[in-house]
């Protein structure tokens, strides 16, 4: 078994990229040559979906490139060591079971999960649950904002369960699917099948359970499903974007049941965690990212992990299209579009504006309405509308709970003043420049 040199492999990838640009996908960087034996170059992809795409579209592109680089008549095969979908062999009618199981992302395993202060408890609880189904925390309820790793933990539980206990029946679905199945079962008069399907599993994992809130009948059915499984000591894992009690219109009996196990919160990652996440994602995708760039990205993208990953992919794509290595220069350019706007928070704006006008934050948030305070406050609101994606209500909330019409009024007032009043225009331009400088890491 021998694999080619890194330079040869890079050369092959480059040729595929230049000769067949339309075929190239962002994750090509993550492909790994496994071995070159008997005239066959085996290439490992991240998951089955990638393998199917490569098989369907890219066989000859890779073979040609490999032949040119190696000057040998080689062919290529694509494979993945990620296991296939979870078997769904419990005899449930195909019409329903088809496509209902969410595909597990093979990257979402515990080994790839970066533990930080914000998610330590949720992670520990997930590991404990996966290692002893139905015995430690039942149900496990994970909540947190979008893109913070809830789905990763849920799928990691499935992966681990599957490897520790291959015979366990796992059902991993979204809340939406549950509700749709329920409706379909009611229409077809196939409630027995439905109940059998959902009540004979060892592990039931439902993502985004908050959507159950709006569906009364589904809630009721889920209540019974929950009880059956819970009594049989079968594991239930749920995720939502808020704690059980805050899911609107969720019946109390469900709220109390959700809270009966462990409710774990995942918080936004701190700076160190973000850096660790970036480093790990970069390694998984075989993207070489220098330390200072990782720090830069982690500083500028604070929202969630999906955005971090998006930034990393953009860096990779840009470095490939410009054929240069990833460095600070490239990172600045890559982050200089819309993702940057998220990097500016209302807090930044308040900082800059209060310093500029020499007012106190407390005054801005108070009910005081002299012009010396109301003007900076309006400027803040105006800039917040421009630089952040917060809603009118949310912006109002930052300034002493003012309602949306106040923010709208401030926005319009400042807009008009910018057009008519040179002094105000200059002020706003100064403030914008300061904010942008901060955006680009000058401060």
């Amino acid at each position: 078994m021998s694999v080619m040199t890194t330079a040869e492999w890079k050369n092959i990838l480059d040729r595929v990229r230049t000769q067949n640009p339309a075929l190239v996908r962002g994750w090509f960087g993550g492909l790994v040559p496994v071995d070159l034996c008997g005239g066959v170059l085996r290439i490992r992809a991240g998951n089955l979906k990638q393998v199917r795409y490569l098989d369907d579209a890219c066989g000859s592109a890779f073979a040609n490139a490999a032949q040119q680089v190696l000057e040998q008549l080689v062919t290529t095969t694509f494979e993945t060591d990620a296991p296939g979908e979870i078997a769904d062999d419990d005899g449930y009618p195909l019409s329903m079971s088809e496509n209902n199981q969410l595909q597990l992302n093979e990257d979402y395993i515990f080994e790839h999960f970066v533990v930080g202060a914000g998610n330590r408890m949720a992670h520990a609880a997930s590991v404990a649950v996966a290692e002893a189904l139905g015995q430690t925390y039942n149900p496990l309820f994970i909540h947190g904002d979008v893109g913070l790793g809830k789905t990763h933990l849920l799928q990691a539980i499935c992966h681990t369960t599957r490897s520790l206990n291959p015979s366990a029946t796992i059902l991993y679905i979204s809340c939406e699917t549950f509700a749709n199945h329920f409706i379909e079962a009611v229409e077809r008069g196939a409630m027995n099948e439905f109940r059998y399907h959902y009540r004979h599993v060892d592990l039931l994992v439902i993502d985004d359970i908050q959507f159950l809130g709006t569906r009364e009948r589904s809630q009721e059915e889920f209540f019974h499903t929950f009880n059956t499984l819970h009594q049989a000591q079968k594991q239930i894992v749920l995720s939502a974007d808020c704690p059980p009690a805050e899911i609107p219109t969720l019946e109390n009996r469900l709220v109390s049941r959700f809270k009966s196990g462990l409710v774990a919160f995942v918080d936004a990652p701190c700076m160190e965690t973000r850096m660790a996440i970036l480093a790990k994602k970069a390694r998984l995708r075989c993207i070489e990212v220098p330390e200072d760039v990782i720090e830069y990205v982690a500083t500028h993208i604070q929202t969630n992990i999906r955005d971090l990953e998006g930034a990393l992919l953009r860096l990779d794509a840009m470095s490939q299209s410009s054929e240069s290595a990833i460095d600070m220069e490239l990172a600045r350019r890559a982050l200089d579009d819309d993702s940057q706007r998220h990097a500016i928070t209302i807090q930044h704006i308040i900082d800059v504006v209060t310093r500029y006008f020499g007012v106190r934050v407390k005054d801005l948030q108070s009910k005081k309405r002299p012009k010396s305070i109301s003007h900076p406050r309006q400027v803040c609101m105006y800039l917040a509308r421009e630089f952040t994606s917060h809603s009118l209500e949310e912006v109002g909330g930052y300034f002493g709970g003012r309602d949306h019409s106040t923010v709208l009024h401030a926005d319009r007032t400042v807009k008009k003043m910018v057009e008519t009043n040179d002094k105000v225009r200059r002020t706003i331009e100064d403030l914008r420049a300061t904010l942008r400088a901060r955006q680009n890491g000058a401060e």
Partner: protein
Amino acid sequence: MKVRMNRQELAEALGAVGSVAASRTPKPILECTMIEAHADHCLLVATDLEIGIRYTVSQVEVDETGPVVLKADKLSQIVRESTDEILEFNSDDSICHVRGAGAHFQIYTQPPADFPPVAELSGEPDFEVDANALRRMAEWTVLAAARENTRYAINGVLWERKGKDLTMVATDGRRLSMAQGKLESDEGANLECIVPVKTMSLFPRILGAADKTVAVKATGSQLVFRTAKATISSSLVEGQFPKYQDVIPSDCDCTATIKTADMLSAVKRSALLTNEESKGVRLSFSSGKLQLSSRAPSQGESVIEIPIEYSDREIEIGFNPTFLVEALRAVQADEVSLDLKEPNRPGVLRGDKGRLYVVMPVNLS
């Protein structure tokens, strides 16, 4: 045993059997040939444990049946150097006496009980191949087969039998040869396996005028062949053969038609002024002509031009002359065609019907 054999026939038999016997092995018995004297014929048996052969010698007079095991190469030398028409073999426990006119060799033997078993073709064969076709397919494919295992190729020839179609493919990573043939019947099991080069090389050697067809049967990890005089059992090469269809370019848009003899002569001459460093011969195709140029640093250079049928765009490509010569020699047709696409993409040489040869260019820049 005691037996008299026709020396000529025995020499032929030993030629085939001797090529199977192992030459360097820690087990001396594998360097031997076993002669089994039966009532009306003798059987010469040899094996290197991967390939086994049983070869029948029919012009014999048997006085006493029984086996004897002798060093294959020594026996072969004695038979070759002798001048007699008939040689007599007479063995006791540990010595075999070989007698010709005025000659007497006493050769130490090995115990026949130690000789490993060699499979026969039992039962009905899976299918039968025309002997001449098999010989020619073997010749064509073996020339591109890898002689040793490299990371690029498998040293075997792929056999693919689907109904009436029999396809053989071999590649050493720089070239690939494919031969397609038709079977008389589509009965019997389909087959896909890799036959070692050593086995394939036996067919041109042992298939003679007497052979009409060769019977083939797959038995688990072995393939057994039966010809008029011999039964060959061969282990198979493990592993996955490269997807050869992917290697054969299908998008070539330049096709030259060239007289085989002209091409062969031109490439051979051009190759005279190449060496390890210059690697290849440059082929420049332009309307109606092919120019071959070569250069050997410190020796000189050559330009050879031959007329061809060609009307596509001008193209320049480098090839290893040895690869072209070996293929062109094996072609029987008067004309060959060469399909090309780019200087860095493989070319396809076609000559006889059902034969195809893909060859990787060399980079001359």
